[in-house]
């Protein structure tokens, strides 16, 4: 069985706000094709202030789907609609003290139900913007659809390419056979043949190395840009990264969310460093911000 957090169990065994809200004026109904779960979210919104007065859920689904629905209603009660729209699936997962990678889609379903309900209140039509496929990489929660799209879009040819662009396969490596199967399939559709020894395609977001050394300001801007481009992948597996300080060629970052304390954090930091060096064409050292205090102390003493 899944290794659910105590918080998930608490919300599953004693769900909050179960059932439909009486005289609700906003309803969102969404389902997840990958597992058949479905959720109806009903809200009572104050027409003047747009504050969510009440929220109720009805869920057909597994333990984490029910827990995600329950915690969502707790999060959004008292928020204005605009505030509620900023709630991400990561917020839902965080409130539950994390979800297994296979179950992250339950939190996505929660966020989508919320968006659908708000669209319903505002008389708009909500459209889903992503498609979910079979989970391939369990270390980084990357699914088949995402890998296929990246293979098409970036003309990827090898497992290494896929790892560089999506992170899939960059952890325990047990999904490499599945990634090869996707490459074989997509390449066949393009009339090409999969060759495991093909030269890697260009690295993502790679720019020609700057000839003149960067100024500190340019460096900080560039680092921020790269971190920003990496955030979607981190968010997808429940984490986030934030730049705290740049001193010389050392970037201090805060790993938050699921990355904080995760056993993959060191590897993720290594990956970020790699990417920064590729893009910037100079040596960059990435260090957890927690290390910074030591440095400051040393400087203070000297």
């Amino acid at each position, binding site marked *: *069985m899944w290794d659910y957090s105590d918080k998930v*169990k608490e919300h*599953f*065994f004693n*769900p909050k706000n*179960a*059932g439909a809200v009486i005289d609700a004026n906003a309803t969102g*109904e*969404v*389902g*997840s*094709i*990958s*597992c*058949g*779960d*479905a*959720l*109806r979210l009903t809200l009572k919104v104050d027409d003047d202030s747009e504050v969510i007065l009440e929220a109720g*859920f*009805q*869920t*057909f*689904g*597994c*333990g*984490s*789907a*029910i827990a995600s629905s329950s915690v969502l209603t707790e999060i959004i009660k008292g928020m204005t609609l605009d505030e509620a729209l900023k709630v991400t699936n990561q917020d839902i997962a965080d409130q539950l003290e994390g979800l297994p990678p*296979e*179950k992250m*889609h339950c939190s*996505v*379903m929660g966020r*989508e139900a919320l968006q*659908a309900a708000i669209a319903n209140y505002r008389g708009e039509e*909500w459209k*889903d913007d*992503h*498609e*979910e496929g*079979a*989970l391939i990489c369990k270390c980084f929660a990357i699914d088949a659809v995402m890998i296929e799209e990246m293979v098409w879009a970036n003309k990827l040819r090898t497992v290494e390419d896929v790892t560089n662009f999506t992170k899939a396969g960059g952890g325990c490596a047990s999904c490499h056979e599945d990634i090869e199967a996707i490459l074989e399939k997509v390449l066949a559709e393009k009339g090409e043949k999969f060759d495991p020894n093909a030269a890697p395609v260009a690295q993502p977001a790679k720019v020609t190395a700057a000839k003149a050394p960067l100024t500190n300001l340019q460096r900080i801007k560039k680092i921020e840009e790269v971190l920003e481009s990496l955030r979607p992948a981190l968010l997808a597996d429940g984490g986030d990264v934030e730049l705290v300080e740049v001193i010389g060629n050392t970037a201090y970052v805060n790993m938050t969310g699921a990355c904080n304390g995760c056993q993959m954090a060191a590897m993720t930091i290594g990956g970020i460093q790699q990417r920064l060096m590729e893009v910037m064409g100079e040596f960059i050292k990435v260090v957890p911000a927690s290390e910074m205090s030591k440095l400051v102390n040393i400087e203070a003493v000297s």
Partner: protein
Amino acid sequence: MTDIYLDNNATTKVDPAVVDVMIPYFLEQYGNPSSIHKFADGVARGLKQARQQVQALIGCEHDSEIIFTSCGTESNSTAILSAIKAQPNKKEIITTMVEHPAILSLCDYLEKEGYTIHRMPVDKAGRLNLESYKKLLSDEVAIVSVMWANNETGTIFPVAEMAALANAAGVMFHTDAVQAVGKIPMMLQDTKIDMLSLSGHKLHAPKGIGVLYLRRGTRYRPLLRGGHQERGRRAGTENSASIVGLGKACELALEYIEYENTKVKAMRDRLERGITEEIPHCFVTGDMYNRLPNTTDIAFEYIEGESILMLLNKAGIAASSGSACTSGSLEPSHVMRAMDIPYTAAHGTIRFSFSRYNSMAEVDEVLKVMPGIVATLRKLSPYWDGNGPVADPEKAFAPTYA
């Protein structure tokens, strides 16, 4: 009440008598069976006896037709890969849509290698159509592999009849009998079955031991080559303690096979009747009139299986589900899909599987908590309204799927 284990199709408790016969093979007779000294001189005898105990349970003609393996999956892989290696010109395999992944994943892989796989469909009660089966048999087919009984529903397939048809067409026949051995009587020597897989841990022997029955004279190519163990048909030092344990477990299974088909069946029937009478909108899946005596698979409409299991677990009851969310992937049970069970029911299937260690008191305990669990979850379901499903559920709740 102590915890109740009703997940015996997943695996079983090792019988204490089995543990007892195994211990000396860890502590005293731990020598390599191939060695000639006193630490090993009793092992060969132990293995010989175990082979005969397995032989007695499955009713095969010779004890040398028993090959010990590491598990049911290894037996299945060995059987199919042997058949295609031995007959390289035959490029077709016949199987069913409801086999265990041990067969289906291998067939998917062979399909990529260029084999044609015929996956026979089943009807709504999980039954095969023998007329279409006959049409598939030809000189092109290397092997037919059909399970004796389905692990989820317990539905029994007519393997003896299908083996005879295959034999008449000159086609090898294998059956994955992991769920059937020890639960239904069998006499392999009266059938045309060429190969059969069984697994120790489904019949109160330990995990990590299995058997491939190989009819004498069947063309065979080993999966593992190496030493002379198992007459060169499965190299690798014998797992002597587990083999001896499996022998004992087979002896006990033969002793209890009537108990299984009377007392165990009575427990299953009582649970099934109790649930379907007490709880509205649930139904038994599979072929109710041709099933393993220990298995019932019940679909609870409008709720989801993992949620049911979590509440059962809290009540100290272990069962399993065909729902998407319990499988570790996210695919709903292929067995339920093959039987065309509606989606709002397929996700809420719960399998209760009994053994001789269960009791009627346990059945009563499950019957006490089950209605409450189902009602609790239905209260949360968008398909449910008060005391019954909403009118026209599929229309009343039609979410946008992403």
